């Protein structure tokens, strides 16, 4: 087990390198010199020069000990992301965003998984019946409505018109209060694709031969479904679940933007508006790291659920 984990960790090194390379090419080579963005209004040539000096935009890109590439690496590996355009340390920004984001995404996520797996099981149980068809149709329909529309209508009617929820984040609200509506919307929007996915997983399993065997044994449908099928279906379901976790830290771009939740999603939107490469770069890198880690965790979970796979 340990050996396996170590091996996997080694395997992640090139990935991390790749991510760093990508972010570098994106934000430094293509993105280029943003000293004007940093300087802000009424910049004078010498302030620009100063900034170039400070941020090392005047340094060579590659092939030098003090090249921007090397610097990029040093900073990333030491998690030193410097200050954003508004002079606040990037890490502070991100730290500040984590709690609101998670308090938004975690409930959405679990609500979604629980509900959609439940529905999927139910639908798989009634496959071929009217209910099944209705469910599938609803799913596809749900998937086809643009996310933004969901949010807008939800905000407009549930909050603005009928006042069930606060329309917008405001400091004196408690987290549960301002998160409630976004969470509901989030769950609803996600339901379509999730149910559909889990349903396919279930049905694939139900076509398997061992199910026929189980029935031939004289087991009743419920037992077959919940004992035999579900445990097999857990495998793909688990992978998707665990792999989704790093995304939770990212928060939800649109929901946070619309409801003004000061999370990481909002942070990203701002960063885009302000061309704040420092923030975007840091976020990209961090989330990639998270993803890699959780990828590893997924494989371990895999081994835990599926006897066919043994780590070693």
């Amino acid at each position, binding site marked *: 087990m340990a050996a396996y984990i170590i091996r996997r960790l080694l395997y992640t090194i*090139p*990935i991390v390198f790749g991510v760093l390379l990508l972010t570098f090419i994106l934000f430094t080579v293509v993105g280029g010199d943003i000293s004007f963005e940093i300087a802000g209004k009424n910049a004078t040539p010498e302030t620009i020069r100063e900034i170039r000096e400070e941020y090392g935009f005047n340094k060579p890109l590659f092939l030098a000990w003090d090249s921007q590439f090397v610097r990029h690496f040093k900073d990333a590996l030491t998690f030193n992301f410097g200050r954003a355009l508004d002079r606040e340390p990037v890490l502070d920004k991100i730290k500040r965003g984590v709690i609101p984001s998670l308090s938004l995404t975690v409930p959405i996520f679990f609500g979604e998984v629980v509900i959609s797996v439940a529905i999927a099981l139910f639908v798989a149980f009634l496959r071929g019946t009217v209910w099944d068809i209705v469910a599938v149709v609803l799913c596809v329909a749900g998937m*086809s409505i643009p996310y933004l529309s969901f949010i807008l209508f939800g905000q407009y009617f549930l909050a603005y018109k009928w006042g069930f929820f606060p329309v917008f984040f405001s400091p004196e609200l408690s987290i549960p209060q301002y998160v409630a509506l976004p969470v509901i919307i989030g769950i609803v929007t996600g339901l379509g694709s999730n149910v559909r996915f889990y349903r396919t997983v279930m049905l694939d399993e139900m076509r398997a031969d061992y199910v026929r065997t189980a029935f031939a044994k004289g087991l009743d449908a419920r037992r077959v479904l919940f004992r035999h099928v579900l445990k097999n279906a857990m495998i793909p379901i688990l992978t998707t679940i665990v792999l989704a976790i790093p995304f939770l830290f990212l928060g939800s771009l649109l929901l946070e933007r619309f409801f003004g939740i000061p999370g990481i999603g909002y942070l990203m939107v701002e960063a885009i508006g302000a061309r704040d490469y420092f923030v975007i770069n840091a976020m990209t890198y961090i989330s990639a790291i998270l993803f890699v880690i959780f990828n590893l965790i997924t494989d371990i979970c895999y081994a835990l659920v599926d006897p066919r796979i043994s780590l070693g």
Partner: protein
Amino acid sequence: MLTRGFHLADNTQTEFKPPKGVSLWQDGFRRLFRRPIAVICFAVIIFYFALAAFIYLAEIFHWQIGFTLWSQATGPSYQPPCRENIFGTDIFGFSVFRRMLYGAKTSITVALCASIISIGIGVPLGAVAGYFRGIVDEIIVWAYSTLSSIPYILLIMAFAVVLHDKTIAGFKLSGITSVYLAIGLTSWVDLCRLIRGETIKHKEREYILAAQSYGCTNSRIIFKHLLPNVFHIVIIIFSLQFVSFIHAEIILSFLGLGEADKPSWGAMINDARIELARGVWWQMVAATVAVFVISLALNVFGDALRDSLDPKLRVR
């Protein structure tokens, strides 16, 4: 003494082989177009494409055809839906309906270009990686696992932000160009992975071995023999990705990274955000309906396509 016995060709499945002379493909499509729903969806999709194409032509040849002239006041500012403006008008009194139609052009263009880019990258890379294996494979796999280790939306945004209004090699990536570049350059991964896997499977098949044995060049084998046999995957992925691309365009133009001064569904929804306050809901509805119909058609059609071409393929 018959112990050795003899075997009739046997596989006990209830699905039936197509009659002679019909390729797996033709058969797939035959089965596909036996489904009325699939046909309807296909018609809808065709309609959208035709619409987009028509608007293009109208623009190039300056045809003065009503519904292509979106920037022409057809009523007072913010006129609610009525007989002459089914979906009402926007702030300048432009017909929202026309804007909606025009939006089809924007979205289709983005989605189409993005698809072309992602296929153009994904398929060759996938095939090459799967066919040659070894170091080439290593590199390509590394490339896409790197990309896929960055959350998709973040990746798209990063690309879009960086490319937005950049001038690269004297070519200005204005509005929509940067959008489909961003989408295309980031979303070839799944396709590449699938194609690679499929290629590896096929590589050991007799017909490839045969082709090698009578000395075909690798490129010929890949493009003449391999790709045709894995191409159904491309089609399926294409139809399914197309939807997500359309939705991505909406989100990007909501973030202000998209088409700016021409109508697009994303922009319309974005406008609606503020205008809802004055009770102007029709922009919103129009755009939503437009997106909904095409997405629905594509989703259903994509599923049908998968069911009839490659039921085992599982794409999320």
